[in-house]
């Protein structure tokens, strides 16, 4: 009855621990350099230099920013709720980091004695777990905003929470059409399906568009960065935060961007699949194949990160009622219609 949990050998546990460590490191690294990329691209779009003082081309800028945040004075407002004030950023960070565990980052390395999957947990529920964790992600914002005991923070937190709850619905609905085709919730199975049948985005362009818009909203990115609308709310839900607690909130946003890029790449763009190339026909070493697929995955993720940044510096922010109208009156019906048409087509083609 209990062999399942005992049967894990110590190598397996070690392997997973190393993977988890590597993933956390990767998330932080990518998030750090996304901040730099954001500023560089913003500079490029606005015809200026961007940060270029710390190191060549400013590549040490994220380190300088992080150091600055660490050594700043940490202020906890006297009237705030101390424990929850601490819990808010911690929760935002934890939730942002957990999601990456179910994403396959590359083709499994098939060695002589053992196979190492580049994925921490290939569970049956795969994508649903991502949704579960994303839906819990609201609490980081809400708790932080409420515990600050500041009207602006509270308003921003409530805005953020209602926005995230609203956009989860069309996100889930657009996903259902993808699930019709892949027939599995397992992330690795979805990637394998796309390797054989072509990328999902070819069959579900509308679904991808809806999913992408919702991902923007879930990450609180422009044009949906209402919780951080400084001209209406001073600074947003993290107004009372300083030092590394603020850093954690800002950082969690970038990690969320990274993870949602990875989710979109996996769901719609074939995950670690190398385009126009049959992985099973690979003759060389398995390690190289794993590295190559991982690099392809990272390239896709970088593309989405660039898209996020591009949109931020191109499109102005929505008004709050526009945001809600778009979510409830446009995206949900659109996602429903998309789902119905896909279901009907699939039924028709199978018969």
């Amino acid at each position, binding site marked *: *009855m*209990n062999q*399942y*949990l*005992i049967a894990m050998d110590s190598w397996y546990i070690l392997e997973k621990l190393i993977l988890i460590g590597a993933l956390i490191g990767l998330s932080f690294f990518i998030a750090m350099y996304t901040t730099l990329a954001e500023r560089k691209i913003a500079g490029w779009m606005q015809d200026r230099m961007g940060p270029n003082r710390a190191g060549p081309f400013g590549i040490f800028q994220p380190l300088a920013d992080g150091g600055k945040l660490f050594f700043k004075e940490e202020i906890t407002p006297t009237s705030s709720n101390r424990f*929850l004030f601490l819990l808010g950023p911690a929760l935002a960070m934890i939730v942002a980091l957990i999601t990456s565990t179910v994403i396959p980052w590359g083709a499994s390395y098939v060695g002589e004695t053992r196979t190492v999957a580049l994925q921490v947990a290939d*569970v*049956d*529920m795969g994508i*649903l*777990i991502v*949704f*579960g964790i*994303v*839906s*819990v992600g*609201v*609490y980081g914002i*809400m*708790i932080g905003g*409420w515990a600050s005991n500041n009207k602006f923070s*509270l308003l921003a*937190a*409530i805005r953020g*929470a*209602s926005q995230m*709850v609203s956009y*989860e619905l069309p996100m889930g609905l657009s996903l259902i059409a993808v699930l019709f085709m892949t027939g599995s*919730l397992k992330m690795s199975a979805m990637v394998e399906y796309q390797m054989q049948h072509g990328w999902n985005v070819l069959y579900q362009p509308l679904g991808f568009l809806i999913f992408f818009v919702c991902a923007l909203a879930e990450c609180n990115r422009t044009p949906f960065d209402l919780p951080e609308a400084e001209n209406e709310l001073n600074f947003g839900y993290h107004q009372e935060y300083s030092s590394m607690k603020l850093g954690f909130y800002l950082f969690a946003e970038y990690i969320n961007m990274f993870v949602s890029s990875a989710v979109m790449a996996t769901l719609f763009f074939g995950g670690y699949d190398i385009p126009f190339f049959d992985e099973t026909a690979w003759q060389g070493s398995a390690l190289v194949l794993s590295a190559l697929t991982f690099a392809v995955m990272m390239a896709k993720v970088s593309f989405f990160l660039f898209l996020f940044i591009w949109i931020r510096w191109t499109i102005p922010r929505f008004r709050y009622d526009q945001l809600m109208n778009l979510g409830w009156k446009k995206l949900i019906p659109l996602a429903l219609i998309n789902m119905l048409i896909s279901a009907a087509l699939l039924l028709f083609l199978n018969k």
Partner: protein
Amino acid sequence: MSIVQILFWVLAVMALFSALMVITSKNPVYSVLWLIVTFFAISGHYILLNAQFLAVVNIIVYAGAIMVLFLFVIMLMNARQEGASGSKRWVTLAGTVSGGIFLLVLVAALKDSELKTRSAMVMDGQVGLIKVLGNELFTRYVIPFEISSILFLSAMVGAVVIGKKD
């Protein structure tokens, strides 16, 4: 003790403790947060029973959506530390009595039931997996399933009608 047993006891203690904290916390926001912890503990139990779908959906729907709405209402109403029940003694009394009676009914109902002789299938049952569950829902239980979806739809329409100002 096996790992499953250790996990079970940890989760059981967590579930009971957080459930107790829900009703003893003075601050309603803390109550809601403890309730979320309870949901997570219960989801852990579902996973032990290999009901993975139920575990994840429990988190998505209850911890992720319904509790957010609870928190919404409480934060917006800015409920004070002292609950409403503290002001009137007979409300407390009535609550205690009705709660006690409910406990009595539960104990009486479960005392002689056949549940005692059945043990849970830990990490083994296949019913909770999504393929099996979907097959059951859309073949054997398709009519109750569809009827309950109509029920939800009517509840939604009702909420919209009530929510409209004019």
